[in-house]
C-alpha cells in the first residue's frame, strides 16, 4: 500500500556529520535536485577550519543547511525542521538549534559507548529520554550501507564511505526529489572508478528504497514548485557568481581579465573558478603573498587589463599600501574582500562584516576608494560588473565586500540574457602631442588611462605626489591640497543609483537599513513583521562609498533607523558621522548570519518601545 504524502510549503534540512563524511557534497546534491524541481531555496554550508579535525569530535563537525519552499524565500532558515546526524558529535553540535518537535535521523551504528564518550555524552541520548520531544529515527546507516554493498568487491572501509549516499537517497525519498541529476553527477564523478561508482549508486538507491519500504518512515512530503519569474535558472553561490560577473565584465569591456591572488578562506574559490576559464583569455596568477597578488593586478591594470585581486580580511591588511598606490596612480583596480571572522586569523570559515572600516579607511593618508557590497549570492554577478564599470570609468580602486555567508551560500539564479548586459567598453588615451597624464576629465575627474605601447605618451607615474595635469613629482603644498581634494571629489562624485526604500504604506516610522549579506534575514524579518500587521520600512545599501545621494533624505524621513550588522556598529558609525543621525545598531559577531527571528525581535523592541 502506498504511503501517505503530506504537502508542505517549506522545509529546512540540516545535514551534519564528520568533516570526512561528505556532508557538503550530500547537501550540494540535495540542493541541485531541489533546484531542478523548481523550489526556491537558500543554503548555508558550515564547516570547520581544520581540514580533518580528529574523527568523531565536536570541532570536526561539518554541516550543510538547506531551506526550500513553494514560495520565494530569503534565508537558509532559522532552525532545521529535520536534522541528519551522522554521529554523536553531529547530534551534540546541532541539537541546540533544533526546535521541539523537529525530526532527527541518526546513524545508529555510530552511537557506540566510545563515540558517545568522545563528545561527553555520559548516557546514550537515543535511550535516556533527552530526545523525547523530537521525532527520532535511529537508522543503521553504516550497517545497512555495508550490507547493501556486500556483493561488490570493496573493503568495509570503502563501503562505509557511501553511507552519505544512503542518507541522501533516504531524504530524497522523503521529499520526493528527482534522482537522475544525482545519478548523472555520480557517473561523471566516478566514471573512471567503476567500483566506487557502483557503490555510490547502490547506496543511494538503497537509501531511497529503505524509506519507501520500511515502517520506520510512515509519510513522505511534497513541496510544490515556487512561482518564480519565467526564465532559465541555475543554482549559484556568491563566489561563483562573482567569478562569472568578472568574466562578464571582461567580455563586456574587451579588457583582459587578470587576477592576482593568494589562497585564503573563504575567497579561494573565486581563484579556483576563474582558473577554470582560461579560454576567456583569463590570466590567474597565484602570487607568493597578498602584496604580490595586488601588485601584479595593479601592474596588469597599468598595462590595460582589468586588474583584480581577491582575498579575505588578513590579506586585505597586507594589500593596504598597494591600494594606496592605486589611489595615487589613479588606475582601475578591483579588490574583492570576502570577509570572515576577525581580527587576525579569527574565525576563518565563519562569516562577519567587520572589515568595513578597514575597507574605507585602512590606509595611510587621505586615501578614498569606492566601496560596494553585494546583498545576496545572485547580486554578486551584477556587482562585479558594477565594480568594473566604476573602476574603469573613474580610474580608481574599487573595494567589493562580500562575506563568507554570501560566498558559500547559494540560491537559484535567473540566468540573465547576455544581450542585456551593460556595455563596459573603455577608451585608452590616444597618441597626442603634449600629453598631460594628470589632466582630468571634467565630468568624471578621471585622468587618462595611457597604457605602455602607446606611441608618444611615454610618461612616468608613481606614489610620490604628482603635480596637477603634468604628473611631474611635486612637493608643492598647494598642489598637494588640490590633489588630495581632487581624489576625494572623484570618489565622492561616482554616480550610483539612489537608494530604493520599500515602505508599502508610505508612512512607516521605523526603517530597517542593512548592507551586504544581512539582506536575506532582514527581508525575511520585514516580510513576517508585515504579515503580523507591523508597519516597517526596509532599505539596503549596495553602495557604501559613495553613499547614494538620497540617503540623507531617507534617514531624515524615519524617526528610527535600525542597522543590523555582523560587527560592532561600523556602518552605524559611518552614517552617524556623515548624516548626524542617531542610528540604532543591532550587532552580533558570532560568525553566523542573523536569523529572521532575531531581527524581528530587535525590530519589535524598537517598534513598540
Amino acid at each position, binding site marked *: 500500500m502506498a504511503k501517505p504524502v503530506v504537502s508542505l510549503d517549506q522545509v529546512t534540512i540540516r545535514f551534519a556529520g564528520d568533516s570526512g563524511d561528505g556532508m557538503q557534497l550530500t547537501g550540494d546534491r540535495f540542493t541541485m535536485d531541489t533546484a531542478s524541481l523548481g523550489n526556491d531555496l537558500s543554503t548555508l554550508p558550515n564547516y570547520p577550519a581544520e581540514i580533518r579535525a580528529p574523527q568523531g569530535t565536536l570541532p570536526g563537525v561539518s554541516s550543510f543547511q538547506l531551506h526550500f519552499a513553494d514560495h520565494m524565500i530569503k534565508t537558509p532558515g532559522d532552525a532545521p525542521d529535520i536534522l541528519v546526524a551522522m554521529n554523536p558529535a553531529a547530534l551534540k553540535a546541532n541539537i541546540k538549534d533544533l526546535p521541539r518537535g523537529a525530526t532527527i535521523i541518526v546513524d545508529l551504528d555510530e552511537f557506540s559507548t566510545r563515540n558517545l564518550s568522545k563528545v561527553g555524552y555520559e548516557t546514550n541520548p537515543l535511550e535516556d529520554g533527552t530526545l523525547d520531544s523530537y521525532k527520532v529515527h535511529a537508522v543503521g546507516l553504516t550497517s545497512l550501507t555495508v550490507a547493501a554493498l556486500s556483493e561488490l568487491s570493496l573493503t568495509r572501509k570503502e563501503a562505509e564511505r557511501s553511507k552519505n549516499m544512503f542518507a541522501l537517497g533516504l531524504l530524497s525519498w522523503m521529499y520526493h526529489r528527482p534522482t537522475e541529476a544525482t545519478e548523472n553527477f555520480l557517473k561523471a564523478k566516478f566514471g573512471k572508478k567503476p567500483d566506487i561508482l557502483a557503490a555510490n549508486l547502490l547506496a543511494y538507491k538503497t537509501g531511497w528504497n529503505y524509506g519507501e519500504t520500511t515502517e520506520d518512515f510512515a509519510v513522505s512530503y511534497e513541496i510544490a514548485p515556487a512561482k518564480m519569474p519565467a526564465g532559465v535558472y541555475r543554482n549559484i553561490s556568491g563566489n561563483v557568481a562573482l567569478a*562569472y560577473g568578472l568574466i562578464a565584465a571582461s567580455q563586456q569591456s574587451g579588457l583582459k581579465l587578470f587576477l592576482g591572488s593568494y589562497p585564503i578562506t573563504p575567497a579561494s574559490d573565486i581563484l579556483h573558478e576563474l582558473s577554470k576559464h582560461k579560454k576567456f583569455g583569463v*590570466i590567474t*596568477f597565484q602570487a607568493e603573498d597578498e602584496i*604580490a597578488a595586488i601588485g601584479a593586478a595593479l601592474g596588469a591594470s597599468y598595462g590595460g587589463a582589468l586588474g583584480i585581486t581577491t582575498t579575505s580580511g588578513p590579506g586585505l591588511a597586507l594589500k593596504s599600501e598597494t591600494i594606496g598606490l592605486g589611489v595615487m596612480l589613479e588606475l582601475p583596480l578591483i579588490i574583492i574582500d570576502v570577509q570572515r571572522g576577525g581580527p587576525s586569523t579569527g574565525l576563518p570559515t565563519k562569516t562577519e562584516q567587520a572589515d568595513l572600516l578597514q575597507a574605507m579607511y585602512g590606509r595611510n593618508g587621505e586615501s578614498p576608494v569606492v566601496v560596494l557590497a553585494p546583498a545576496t549570492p545572485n547580486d554578486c554577478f551584477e556587482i562585479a560588473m558594477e565594480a568594473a564599470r566604476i573602476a574603469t570609468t573613474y580610474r580608481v580602486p574599487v573595494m567589493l565586500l562580500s562575506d563568507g555567508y554570501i560566498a558559500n551560500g547559494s540560491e537559484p539564479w535567473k540566468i540573465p540574457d547576455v544581450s542585456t548586459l551593460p556595455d563596459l567598453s573603455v577608451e585608452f588615451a590616444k597618441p597626442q602631442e603634449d600629453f598631460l597624464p594628470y589632466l582630468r576629465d571634467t565630468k568624471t575627474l578621471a585622468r587618462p588611462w595611457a597604457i605602455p605601447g602607446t606611441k608618444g605618451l611615454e610618461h612616468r607615474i*608613481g606614489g610620490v605626489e604628482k603635480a596637477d595635469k603634468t604628473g611631474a613629482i611635486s612637493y608643492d603644498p598647494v598642489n598637494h591640497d588640490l590633489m588630495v581634494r581632487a581624489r576625494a571629489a572623484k570618489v565622492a562624485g561616482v554616480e550610483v543609483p539612489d537608494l530604493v526604500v520599500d515602505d508599502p504604506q508610505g508612512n512607516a516610522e521605523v526603517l530597517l537599513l542593512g548592507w551586504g549579506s544581512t539582506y536575506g534575514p532582514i527581508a525575511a524579518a520585514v516580510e513576517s513583521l508585515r504579515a503580523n500587521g507591523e508597519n516597517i520600512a526596509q532599505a539596503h545599501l549596495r553602495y557604501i562609498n559613495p553613499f547614494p545621494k538620497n540617503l540623507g533624505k531617507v534617514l531624515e524621513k524615519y524617526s528610527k533607523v535600525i542597522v543590523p550588522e555582523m560587527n560592532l556598529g561600523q556602518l552605524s558609525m559611518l552614517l552617524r558621522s556623515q548624516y548626524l543621525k542617531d542610528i540604532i545598531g543591532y550587532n552580533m559577531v558570532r560568525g553566523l548570519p542573523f536569523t529572521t527571528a532575531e531581527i524581528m525581535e530587535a525590530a519589535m523592541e524598537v517598534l513598540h518601545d
Partner: protein
Amino acid sequence: MTEITLTKKDFTSDQEVKWCPGCGDYSILSTVQSYLPELGVPRENVVFISGIGCSSRFPYYLNTYGMHSIHGRAPTIASGLAISRPDLSVFVITGDGDSLSIGGNHLIHALRRNVNLKILLFNNRIYGLTKGQYSPTSEQGKVTKSTPLGSLDTPFNPISLAIGAEASFVARSIDSDRKHLTEVLRAASAHKGSALIEIYQNCPIFNDGAFDSLKDNETKEGALLKMVHGEPIKSATHGLVHAGSSLKLVELGSVAESDLVVHDVHNPDPSYAFALSRFSNSKLDHVPVGIFRDVERAEYGSQVNGQISDIIAAQGAGDLKTLLTSGDTWTVA
C-alpha cells in the same frame, strides 16, 4: 622590421636629475640611456618599474614608460605587466634594501618563475634614501646610525641568493665600468626570462669608497676576477682552479694556465655558478665580475599565455552565454 634610429637623447626625460653629486647612480643612468637605442625596441614599448630608494628614482629620468612604485614591490607590479603584456620590455630598478630586505620575497619568486624582467639591483651596501642605515648587504660590523656598535647580521650575497632562487641569468657589474655594464645589459636583454644584474654602486654620502678596491688602479687588476665565456677566470694576479666539486683561488704562477677554470655561462649545474658567487667576500679582494649564469629555461609569461592559446586552439574561445548556462539548469515557464 623598420629601422629604429634612436639616440641617447631620445631616452632622456626632461626631469632634473637629483642624486647627490658623485653618486654612482649617475653613471649607471648614463650607461642605460646610451644602451637603450641599441635594444632595438620602440621607446613606447619600454617600461621601467622601480621600488623606493635613491636608485628607484631612475625611471623619472628616462623618457620611456615608467612607474616609481612602493618599497620592495616593483617585481610584483612588473610581473603583472610583463605577463599580461608580453609585447613590452620591462625593466626593474631596485636597491639592496628594496630588493633584499622588504622585497626579498618578491625577488626570489620573480626569479624562480623566470618572468621576462631585467632586474637592475643597485647595490651600495647601505640605505641611501633613509640616510645611511646598514642594509642586508652591508658587511658585518658596519657602523651606521642604527648600528653604532657595529651591525651583527650576516650579509646576503645577492648572487648566491639569486642562484639559490633558480635564476636563469645572473651577473655582476660596476657602476663606473660603462663598457662592462653595457655588455652585461646586452646579454641580459638577449636572455629570455628574468635576469638579475647586481651593480656595485658607490654612495659617496653614506658609504663612500665601498668598492674602491675594485676601482683603484693599484688594486683593481688584482681584485677583479673577470668572467668571460670560454676564457679562463682570472685577475692579474689570481685565477680559479677546480678543487674537487668546488673551486679554489690560486696565485697565477702556482699552476699552469691550462689548469684554470674555463668559464661556461651555460653550465646547467647551478652549483658551478654558486661556487663562483662565493668568491665575493666582504673585503672585496677577489671579486668575480661578469655573467655567472645564463641558462635557457621556459619563460613564465609565455607559458601563461601558451596555456590560454592552447585551450582556445583546442576548444575555441569562451562564450559567455554557454558559460552562464553551464551545469544543472532548469526552466520556469
